[in-house]
């Protein structure tokens, strides 16, 4: 694949369609640029009360007593709840979120702490009151007595003999077998392929390095909101901003021990999530407060609550060792991945293990993964969860191999690139993938050959893999008599998916994207639809829309046949018109036939429920130029090119947007962002001033190349685009810093302090 003349955003198209691949204005656009779109915090209803959650000031403490009497006496306070108000749970029940899962007893304990506070910010109690201010005052009047315990804050610390135990009853699962060893190590898994020792013996050169990363947050701009009304008829209604309305429904049903049919979740517009708005935090608490008061109760998190009381992505310790022959053939690779799970088991180390070497075809591999509980918030998904931590290590070691072998870093990757038929160390054999095509698009991009002039400047590259997921989606389509369709789907629209889903239905029916009215329905009004996550929405819900449109088409063909009094087999649908295969006189546009439905038998509704298995993995690569200030260590990103195989870009503008957004988050992760922890486990930078996400002034334009290697497992070839793009930025920037300074940065973030310190170490 070759690129032509440079443009900031290029699409390497594999197949063209009428609607798919065009750039219509999104259907919810006017609402979102006028302020009319209603997000979770905008919800209001008669008699609404306001809730506030009291959170633990300690990272690890036994709760000795909770005295709510003073708070209850405050005028305007209507109810207070603690963990005692939650039903007790059965052991061993697993709640599946689509992207991640959690044991019910832990999920419940995370909603309101029972006997121990396991991280600073852990919810302890909650108040419902007449105003948010009264609720806040009341929460401060709740008297909690703690016995403060020593916290454990990193995975390596947590695995040490004699470390304070986060859960006294947690036993290590070693290679799938439960042991009787009490430890913070929840589990250790291992993937093996070939013979590692033999592979390293065949190598002419071996590079091994250790890397550390710290906790970072998704940083969505909208704090979590939730309103619950436990109605007097026993039904619980929840209005919230979530990536998965059905996940909220199912999680609340388990936590509150009521049937799913008793819960209706209304997904409001969502102000960003990136994986962080899948788990429930506020919803069960608002429900309990509503049940106690008989009123709807709204709780909205503060920014500090978001940092301390939700689920960031973990800090980690990663050791990677790779051996290669002098010709660049990689012969062996070993990874040791120890990830912080947060306060309960379930870090994304499993996904890290699936991705750490998956851009490469390597014969001899061992991957060890360790899931370690620590006194920090329970980690949640964040855009390709687990993969960036691993790639930060692998892609720097590969870069170092290229340097030592005197090879071009893209050539070394191309020589070892994974392709169709490559078996990953964790098992799966790749179907058609676009790893080689992405690397080739990087190599032929004008950025890669552009001169890099001036002192202290360097260029780095890297590549990343994410597997993407399928899961269930539902959709229904009703035909309007003016030739438009109404499309009802269950995937919350976090970044333009109303458009990308509607366009797939429009393509099938030969109508314009603007002739589709897509809406996201509540859990009573649409079939089960899994989470908006795993880069699955345009893939799976788009497929549901495709199938529902096919259902409409079948019924419309039958209707045309009835009108013409011919056999349905003799009617075809082509380019937006129904035609007789035998009589060229008989032809009707979609719009014409739609206008005749009521007089020819009644309305037409198409429907589909899918659970596709053919999710296609996505590869993303970066070329980055940086300048490092030799005095301060500050790194400036001068030029950034993001390349990704997305299968098929349904709406290229929003595909580019995902690539640019993921790149920006990766740049923030690389250079600035971190939970800055005090010694007692308190995050000390809980504002958006001190938790420093990239601003417009920190970034250059982010050029994109959309590579389209069609996914054979989707009607239009979609793979999904949401996640893989966050993987390559941290190592690409690290490699660029190395190219500029000769320094290997072995920890994140690579802020001025870290770069300066690495310089001091080198000079010693």
């Amino acid at each position: 694949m070759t690129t032509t003349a440079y443009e900031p955003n290029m699409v390497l198209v594999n197949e063209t369609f009428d609607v798919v691949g065009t750039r219509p204005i999104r259907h919810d656009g006017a609402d979102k640029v006028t302020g009319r779109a209603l997000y979770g915090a905008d919800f209001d209803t008669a008699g609404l009360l306001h809730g506030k959650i009291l959170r633990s000031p300690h990272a690890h403490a036994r709760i000795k007593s909770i005295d709510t009497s003073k708070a209850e006496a405050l005028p305007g306070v209507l109810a207070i709840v603690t963990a005692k108000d939650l039903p007790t749970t059965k052991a061993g029940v697993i709640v599946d979120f689509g992207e991640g899962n959690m044991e019910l007893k832990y999920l419940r304990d995370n909603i309101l702490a029972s006997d121990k506070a396991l991280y600073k910010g852990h919810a302890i109690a909650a108040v419902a009151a007449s105003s948010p201010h009264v609720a806040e005052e009341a929460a401060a009047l709740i008297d909690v007595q703690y016995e403060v315990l020593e916290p454990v804050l990193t995975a390596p610390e947590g695995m040490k003999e004699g470390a304070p135990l986060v859960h006294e009853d947690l036993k290590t699962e070693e290679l799938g077998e439960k042991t009787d060893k009490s430890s913070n190590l929840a589990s250790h898994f291992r993937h093996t392929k070939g013979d590692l020792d033999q592979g390293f013996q065949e190598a002419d050169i071996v590079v091994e390095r250790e890397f550390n990363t710290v906790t970072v947050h998704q940083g969505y701009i909208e704090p979590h909101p939730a309103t619950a009304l436990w109605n007097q008829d026993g039904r619980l209604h929840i209005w919230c901003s979530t990536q998965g309305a059905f996940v909220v429904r199912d999680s609340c049903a388990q936590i509150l021990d009521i049937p799913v049919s008793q819960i209706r979740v209304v997904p409001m517009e969502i102000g960003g999530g990136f994986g962080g708005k899948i788990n429930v935090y506020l919803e069960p608490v608002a429900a309990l407060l509503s049940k106690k008061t008989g009123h709807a109760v709204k709780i909205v998190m503060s920014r500090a609550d978001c940092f301390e009381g939700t689920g960031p992505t973990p800090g980690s310790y990663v050791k990677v060792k790779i051996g290669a022959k002098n010709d660049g053939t990689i012969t062996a690779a070993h990874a040791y991945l120890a990830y912080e799970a947060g306060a309960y088991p379930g870090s994304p180390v499993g996904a890290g293990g699936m991705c750490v070497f998956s851009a490469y075809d390597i014969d001899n591999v061992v991957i060890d993964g360790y899931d370690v509980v620590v006194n920090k918030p329970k980690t949640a998904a964040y855009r390709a969860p687990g993969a960036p931590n691993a790639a930060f290590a692998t892609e720097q070691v590969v870069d170092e191999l290229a340097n030592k072998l005197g090879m071009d870093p893209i050539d070394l990757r191309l020589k070892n690139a994974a392709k169709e038929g490559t078996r990953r160390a964790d098992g799966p054999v790749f179907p058609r993938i676009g790893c080689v095509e992405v690397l080739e698009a990087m190599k032929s991009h004008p950025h890669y050959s552009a001169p890099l002039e001036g002192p202290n400047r360097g260029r780095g590259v890297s590549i990343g893999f994410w597997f993407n997921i399928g899961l269930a989606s539902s959709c229904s389509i009703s035909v309007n008599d003016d030739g438009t369709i109404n499309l009802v789907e269950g995937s919350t629209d976090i970044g333009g998916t109303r458009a990308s889903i509607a366009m797939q239905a429009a393509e099938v029916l030969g109508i314009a994207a603007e002739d589709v009215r897509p809406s996201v329905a509540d859990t009573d009004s649409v079939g089960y639809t899994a989470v908006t996550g795993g880069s699955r929405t345009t893939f799976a819900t788009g497929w549901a829309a495709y199938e529902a449109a096919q259902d409409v088409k079948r019924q419309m063909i039958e209707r045309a046949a009835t009108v013409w009094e011919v056999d349905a087999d003799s009617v075809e649908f082509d380019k937006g018109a129904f035609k007789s295969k035998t009589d060229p006189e008989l032809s009707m546009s979609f719009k014409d036939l739609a206008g005749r439905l009521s007089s020819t038998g009644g309305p037409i509704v198409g429907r589909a429920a899918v659970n596709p298995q053919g999710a296609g993995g996505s590869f993303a690569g970066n070329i980055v130029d940086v300048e490092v200030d030799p005095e301060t260590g500050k790194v400036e990103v001068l030029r950034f090119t993001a390349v990704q195989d997305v299968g098929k870009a349904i709406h290229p503008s929003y595909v580019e947007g995902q690539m640019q957004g993921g790149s920006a988050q990766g740049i923030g992760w690389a250079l600035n962002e971190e939970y800055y922890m005090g010694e007692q486990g308190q995050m000390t930078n809980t504002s958006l001033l001190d938790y420093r996400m990239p601003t417009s002034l920190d970034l250059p334009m982010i050029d994109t190349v959309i590579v389209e290697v069609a996914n054979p497992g989707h009607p239009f070839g979609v793979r999904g685009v949401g996640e893989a793009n966050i993987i390559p930025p941290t190592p690409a920037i690290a490699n660029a810093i190395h190219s500029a300074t000769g320094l290997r940065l072995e920890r994140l973030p690579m802020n001025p302090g870290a770069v300066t310190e690495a310089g001091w170490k080198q000079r010693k």
Partner: protein
Amino acid sequence: MPGKTYVQATINGEHTDFLCEPRQSLLEVLRDVIGLTGTKEGCNDGNCGACTIILDGRIVTPCLVLAVEAEGKEMTTIEGIANGSTLHPIQQSFLENAALQCGICTPGFIVATKALLDENPNPTEYEIRFWLANNLCRCTGYDKIIRAVQDAATTMQEAKA
């Protein structure tokens, strides 16, 4: 509890009055008392810019303004940007450039852009980035927002010519 204060102001060209507690921020009053929920809360401490409004010709974050301070002031919120039934060129440009994903930061960006182009109708890329540096967007990486502002500036210049 202290009593409420009577405040009169002009919001989006309309005379408006409201009662507020002295501790209520202008953001809280705009959203919860007056019902203008297009102005979004992202941090409540002036760092994200999601609640940006124009107050007497200057952009401010109303989370850092007490509602009682609005007495006699003129304000423009996102609800006051469109021209009747037509989108403002900035709003149209944000749509055409796909300059939003989740949309929660969008009202703040559009209001801040309005103030920028009122003051500097033909800004450079650097001037746009500098002006908008108080508005955080986590979805877009800013690329398409910058292009949308550039396009809007061109459209508005051409309309004037």
